[in-house]
C-alpha cells in the first residue's frame, strides 16, 4: 500500500493502523521563473472597516485585526470612516517626504555600489509606513525603529547630511563610526539607537512608555519590527508587558512579506494575520493597508490618541511589500518571482498619494516631475558635502583613540592601558 502524500518519510511502527505523521514546511506561492499570483488576496472595500472609539475595549474590535483599514481606493479617492481628511499642505508634505526618502535611498544605494560604504538598505515601496506614522505622532514621542524606518528621521526634518555622515562612518558621524550604516541614533529627533539584533527594541519601547506613564508624562512610545521577527521572544515579551501595564505604546509590525529570503509563512503568516497576534494579548489590533499613507496616518493617530487616553497599547500590522532586496548584500531574484513587485495589488505609496493629490486639484504631473528633479539634486549636493567628511575606509574617520571611548562613562584602567598599547604599536610600526 502506498500513500500518495508520503514523500519518503521513514515507515515505522508496523502493526499500528495509523497514517504516518507529516511535517508541514511552508513554501511561498511563487519562486523564480514562476508567475506571481495575488488572486487569493481579497482587498476589502474602503468603507469595510469600522472606526471604533479610541477608548473601545480590544474585545469589541477583533475583526479589525483580520480586515484591512483603507482610505484611498483604487482610483485615489479618499473615503470610509478612517479618512483623516487632512488639509492640502499636509498631503503635499507627505508626498514630498516620501519622495525625498526614495531619492535618499537611491543616492545611498548607489554610493554603496560605488564602494563609498559597506552596506545599505532601501525602504522602496514602504515609505508610507514610516512617514504616515511619523506625521501622526507628536514630535516628542519616542520612536524605537527597526532598520527600514529612515523615513521617520526624514519626516522629522533631521538633516540628511547627518544621516549620510553616519552611512559613511566618517569624521562627521556623531556615532563615531561604530555602527553599521543606517543604524542611526538621534535622541533630539526622538529616534532611538538601532540595534542589529532583531526586535530587541520592542520591550525597550514598552519600558520607555511604562516610564512615561509612571512619571505622569504625556509622551508615548512607538516601535517597529518586521513580520519575520515577530517570531523573536522579545516581540512576545513586549506584548505581555504592554498588555499587563496598559503601556502607552504603539507596536508596529511592518509586514513586507519577506525576511531576507524567508517568506512570511515562516513567521506564522500562513495561519493568521500578524495583527491578530494582538488578540491573544488583549491588545487592540489593526491591520492596515501599508501602501496607503492616509490609512497609516489614521491608524497611528487613532492608536496615539488611545495611548494618550490611557486606553492601552495598539498593535498595527502594516501590510506592504518589500520592492527591493533586503539590503545591498541581497539578490531577491534568487528566491522570488521577478514579477511579484509589479503585480503587488496595493500599488506604490507615492503613486497613490500623487494620484489623490492630482484628483483633488492641488498637484499635477509637471510639479511632481520638478519636485523629483529638485530632490535628486538636493540629495546629490548633500552627499557631496558629506563626502568631504570622508567615506568608509579612506582615512577621514574619528581619531584612533576614540575606539575606547563610551564603553563606560569613565574609562577604566584596563581600557586606558589597551588604548595606550594600541597607540604605541602603531607608533612603533611607523604609522
Amino acid at each position: 500500500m502506498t500513500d500518495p502524500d508520503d514523500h519518503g518519510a521513514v515507515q515505522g511502527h508496523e502493526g499500528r493502523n495509523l497514517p504516518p505523521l507529516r511535517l508541514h514546511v511552508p513554501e511561498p506561492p511563487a519562486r523564480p521563473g514562476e508567475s506571481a499570483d495575488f488572486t487569493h488576496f481579497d482587498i476589502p472595500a474602503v468603507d469595510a472597516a469600522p472606526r471604533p472609539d479610541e477608548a473601545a475595549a480590544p474585545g469589541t474590535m477583533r475583526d479589525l485585526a483580520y480586515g484591512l483599514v483603507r482610505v484611498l481606493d483604487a482610483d485615489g479617492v479618499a473615503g470610509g470612516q478612517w479618512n483623516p481628511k487632512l488639509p492640502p499642505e499636509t498631503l503635499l508634505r507627505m508626498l514630498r517626504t516620501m519622495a525625498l526618502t526614495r531619492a535618499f535611498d537611491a543616492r545611498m544605494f548607489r554610493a554603496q555600489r560605488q564602494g563609498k560604504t559597506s552596506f545599505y538598505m532601501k525602504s522602496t515601496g514602504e515609505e508610507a509606513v514610516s512617514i504616515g506614522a511619523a506625521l501622526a505622532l507628536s514630535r516628542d514621542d519616542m520612536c524605537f525603529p527597526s532598520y527600514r524606518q529612515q523615513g521617520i528621521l526624514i519626516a522629522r526634518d533631521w538633516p540628511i547630511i547627518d544621516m549620510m555622515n553616519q552611512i559613511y562612518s566618517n569624521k562627521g558621524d556623531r556615532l563615531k563610526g561604530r555602527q553599521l550604516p543606517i543604524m542611526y541614533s538621534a535622541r533630539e529627533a526622538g529616534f532611538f539607537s538601532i540595534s542589529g539584533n532583531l526586535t530587541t527594541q520592542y520591550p525597550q519601547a514598552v519600558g520607555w512608555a511604562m516610564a512615561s506613564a509612571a512619571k505622569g508624562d504625556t509622551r508615548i512610545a512607538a516601535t517597529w519590527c518586521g513580520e519575520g521577527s515577530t517570531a523573536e521572544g522579545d516581540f512576545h515579551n513586549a506584548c505581555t508587558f504592554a498588555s499587563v501595564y496598559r503601556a502607552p505604546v504603539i507596536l508596529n509590525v511592518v509586514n513586507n512579506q519577506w525576511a531576507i529570503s524567508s517568506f512570511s509563512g515562516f513567521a506564522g503568516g500562513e495561519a493568521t494575520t500578524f495583527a491578530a497576534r494582538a488578540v491573544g494579548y488583549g491588545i487592540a489590533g489593526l491591520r492596515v493597508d501599508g501602501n496607503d499613507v492616509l490609512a497609516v496616518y489614521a491608524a497611528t493617530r487613532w492608536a496615539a490618541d488611545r495611548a494618550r487616553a490611557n486606553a492601552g497599547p495598539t498593535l498595527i500590522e502594516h501590510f506592504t511589500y518589500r520592492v527591493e532586496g533586503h539590503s545591498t548584500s541581497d539578490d531577491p531574484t534568487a528566491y522570488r518571482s521577478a514579477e511579484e513587485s509589479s503585480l503587488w495589488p496595493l500599488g506604490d505609496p507615492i503613486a497613490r498619494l500623487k494620484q489623490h493629490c492630482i484628483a483633488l486639484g492641488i498637484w499635477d504631473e509637471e510639479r511632481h516631475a520638478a519636485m523629483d528633479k529638485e530632490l535628486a539634486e538636493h540629495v546629490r549636493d548633500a552627499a557631496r558635502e558629506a563626502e568631504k567628511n570622508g567615506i568608509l575606509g579612506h582615512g577621514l574617520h574619528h581619531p584612533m583613540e576614540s575606539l575606547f571611548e563610551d564603553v563606560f562613562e569613565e574609562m577604566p584602567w584596563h581600557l586606558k592601558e589597551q588604548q595606550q598599547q594600541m597607540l604605541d604599536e602603531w607608533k612603533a610600526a611607523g604609522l
Partner: protein
Amino acid sequence: MNMIQAINSAMDVMMERDPDVVVMGEDVGFFGGVFRATAGLQEKYGKNRVFDTPITECGIIGVAVGMGAYGLRPVPEIQFADYIYPALDQLVSEAARLRYRSAGEFIAPMTVRSPFGGGIFGGQTHSQSPEGIFTHCSGIKTVIPSTPYDAKGLLIAAIEDNDPTIFFEPKRIYNGPFDGHYDTPAKSWAGHADAQVPTGYYRIPLGKARTVRAGEALTILCYGTMVHVVEDTVRAMGLDADIVDLRSLVPLDIEAIEASVKKTGRCLIVHEATRTSGFGAELMAQVQERCFYHLEAPIERVTGFDTPYPHSLEWAYFPGPVRIREAINKIMKD
C-alpha cells in the same frame, strides 16, 4: 543587619533620595521578594516605583533598558542568577553597548540584582555563578559583596552609577557567614563586625578591593562567599596570608592585586564558578603579566568543576576548606 536587610536598606535609601529609582522583578512588590530583599518598599514608595513583573527575564531587562533610556534608574531583580541566561541578549547586546553604539546619546543606568552561588542544596538551577560571562562582555560592571556593610555601600554606588551593573548577591551568606563546613550549624551575622551597618547613606566606590587580613606568606584572591571560607581555612591553618576580597570584578582593583602578590610572591585564586574561562583565568593572566618576576611558586586556583552544578554531591563540587588547604600546601611547598 544581615545582608538581606543591608540590601533592602540600600534600595530604601536610594529610593528616598532619587525619585527616578524604580525596583522591578518577579514577586518583588506586594510579597517583597522570595528572599525578602524588597520587603516594605512597595508599601513605602507605591506601585509606580516598586512593581511585580511577568515571568520573563528577557522582558524584565528589555523593559529596564527602555526605562533607563527614558531617564529612570531601574533596579531589576532576577530571582536566581541561573535564570539570567534568557536575558543575556538584552544585557550584553543592548544594555552593555547602548552608550557605545549611540556615542553617549542613550544610556542604560540599571543595576541588576541577582542572588547567586551554591551551598544551599539548590541543584543545577539555583546554584550557578555566571559572573565570568559578564566580565567577558565589554560595557557592563560586575559587583559581588561579601559582607552586609559592603553589600549596602556597593549597592548604593551601583545604583548611582551611570553604567549597567550586575550585582550578584552570594545567597549562602545572606543570613550569616559561611566557613565551608556544611555539617556545622549555620552562623548568624549577629555580633559580626561587618554587620554593623549604618541606616543612612554611605557608598563604597566600585573598583576598590578590601584587604580582609594582611599577611606575608601568600596572596589569596577571592570574592563573595569564598571570602569567608578562605578566611576561616587560613585561620585554622595558622597561616599569615594576605586575603584580598575583590568586591568588583569589572572594574578590577589591579593595583591592590599587584601590590599584594609582589609583597608575598605567591598567589591562590578561589571562586565557586566553573574553571575553564572562569574569572580566575583572567586573574592568573593578570598576575603572571604583572608579577612574573616576583613569583616564587606557580599560581594556583581552586574553583568549581567544569560540570553542571550537582545536587547530592554539592560538597564535592564546592571549593571548600579541604581543597583550599591542599592548594595552599602545594603553593607553600616551593
